[in-house]
C-alpha cells in the first residue's frame, strides 16, 4: 500500500502540508523533551544528562520496529523508502564538524530553531553561525567537491553492509539500546548532580 505519496494514495500536493504538520509535532516534541536547553544537550557530552541519547535511540528503535512490522503486514513497501546515500569520508568529516558545533553551541540544527523560537539569544547566535557556515561551504564548494563526492557506497543500510538479516539487526539493536539505557543511568547516578 504505502508509501502513500509516491503510490498516489495521497496526491503529491499534500506533501508540504503534511511536512509542516509533522514539523510542528517534531518541534513540539523537541521542546517538550527539554531539548531547547543547550545545557541539556551538551549534558550527553559531559556525562550528566543523557536525555538526548535516550530520546533519539528510542525514536530510532520504535521507528525501525514499526516500519518493519508495517513492511511485514504489507502496509508499506520498504524497498520504496528513501535511503540516504553513503559517502564515507564526507560523512565522517561532516560528522566531526557537526559534533564540534554541537559541543560549542549546545544545539543541533533542529533544536536551534526550537530554542530560537522560545527566545533564547544563544540559539539565535547559533542560527546566525549556521548561515555563515552554509555560506562558507557554498563558497568553498569547488574546493571541497572532490572530498564531498568521494568514496560513494550507494544507498546502503547497516544490515546490507554487515550482511545480516535486518530482523536480526533490529533485535540486536534493541538489546544494545536497552543495555545502553541501563549503563547510561548508572553513569548519571555516579556523576555529581548538575542543576540547570
Amino acid at each position, binding site marked *: 500500500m504505502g508509501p502513500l505519496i509516491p503510490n498516489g494514495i495521497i496526491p503529491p500536493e499534500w506533501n508540504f502540508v503534511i511536512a509542516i504538520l509533522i514539523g510542528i509535532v517534531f518541534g513540539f516534541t523537541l521542546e517538550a523533551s527539554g531539548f531547547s536547553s543547550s545545557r541539556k544537550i551538551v549534558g550527553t557530552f559531559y556525562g550528566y544528562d543523557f536525555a538526548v541519547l535516550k530520546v533519539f535511540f528510542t525514536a530510532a528503535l*520504535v521507528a525501525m520496529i514499526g516500519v518493519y*512490522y*508495517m513492511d511485514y*503486514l*504489507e*502496509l508499506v513497501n520498504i524497498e520504496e523508502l528513501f535511503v540516504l546515500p553513503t559517502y564515507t569520508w564526507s560523512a565522517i568529516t561532516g560528522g566531526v564538524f557537526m559534533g564540534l558545533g554541537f559541543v560549542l553551541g549546545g544545539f543541533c540544527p533542529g533544536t536551534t530553531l526550537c530554542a530560537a523560537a522560545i527566545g533564547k539569544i544563544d540559539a539565535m547566535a547559533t542560527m546566525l553561525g549556521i548561515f555563515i557556515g552554509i555560506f562558507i561551504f557554498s563558497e568553498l564548494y569547488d574546493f571541497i567537491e572532490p572530498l564531498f563526492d568521494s568514496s560513494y557506497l550507494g544507498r546502503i543500510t547497516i544490515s546490507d553492509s554487515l550482511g545480516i538479516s535486518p530482523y536480526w539487526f533490529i533485535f540486536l539493536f534493541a538489546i544494545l539500546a536497552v543495555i545502553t539505557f541501563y549503563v547510561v543511568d548508572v553513569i548519571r547516578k555516579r556523576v555529581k548532580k548538575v542543576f540547570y
Partner: protein
Amino acid sequence: MKELEKTKRISFSAVIIILAVLIGVLSFKKPNNIFKKNIELTLKPIASQNYILYQKDIFATTINNLAFIDIRNAFKYSKGHLKNSKNIYTANLLEKKNKEYLKHLETQHKTIVLYGSEPGEASGAWMLLTQMGYKNVKLLCVKTNYINNKFSISDYPLEKEQYNYAAYMKKASSGGIKTKKIVRKKVIKLTKKKKKVAEGGC
C-alpha cells in the same frame, strides 16, 4: 513529583503500541496470488523462445505428458476444441479450483500447454502463470479454425513479416507501386435543421 505524572503517558503509549501491533497482525491476510520476485524466470524463456510449442512438436513428444488448457471462453470452447483439453477462460485463471487443477498438473510433472484462437490471445495467460512461478507452461503457436462444423488447428505465422519492409519501401518510394485514383460519386449532404432550443441556466 513532576516526573511521576508522566507515568500515565508511558502506559498509554505502551498500550497503544501493543494494540496497533495486535490489530495489524490479526487483520492481516496473506495474499492469495503473488508474482515471484525473480524476473529472470520470465526473461529466460522469452530470450530463448523455448516456451513456444509448434503443431509439429505436439506429435513429436508423447502426448500423455501434455495437458492442454483452452483459454478461450466457454462458448467458443463448446463449439469445438482440442481433444483432452480443459477449458479455463483467461479471466478465471486465478479462481481457486483452477489454480488447484494447475498445481495438480504440476505435481504430476505435466507440461501445461495453453492455446487460444491465436497465440496472442494466450500470451497474457502464459505471462501470468509463468510470473506466478509455474514452471512447465508452454504456449501453442496455432490458429484455431472452425469450418463446416469442424474444429481444426493450423500453424500460425508468429511475428512473421508479410513484406520485406525495407525493399518494399524502396520500391514504393520510387513509384514502383502504382495506385490509381478512384472517382467517387458525389454525395449531396443534407443536414437536418436543428430546432432552436431555448437555452437557460440557473
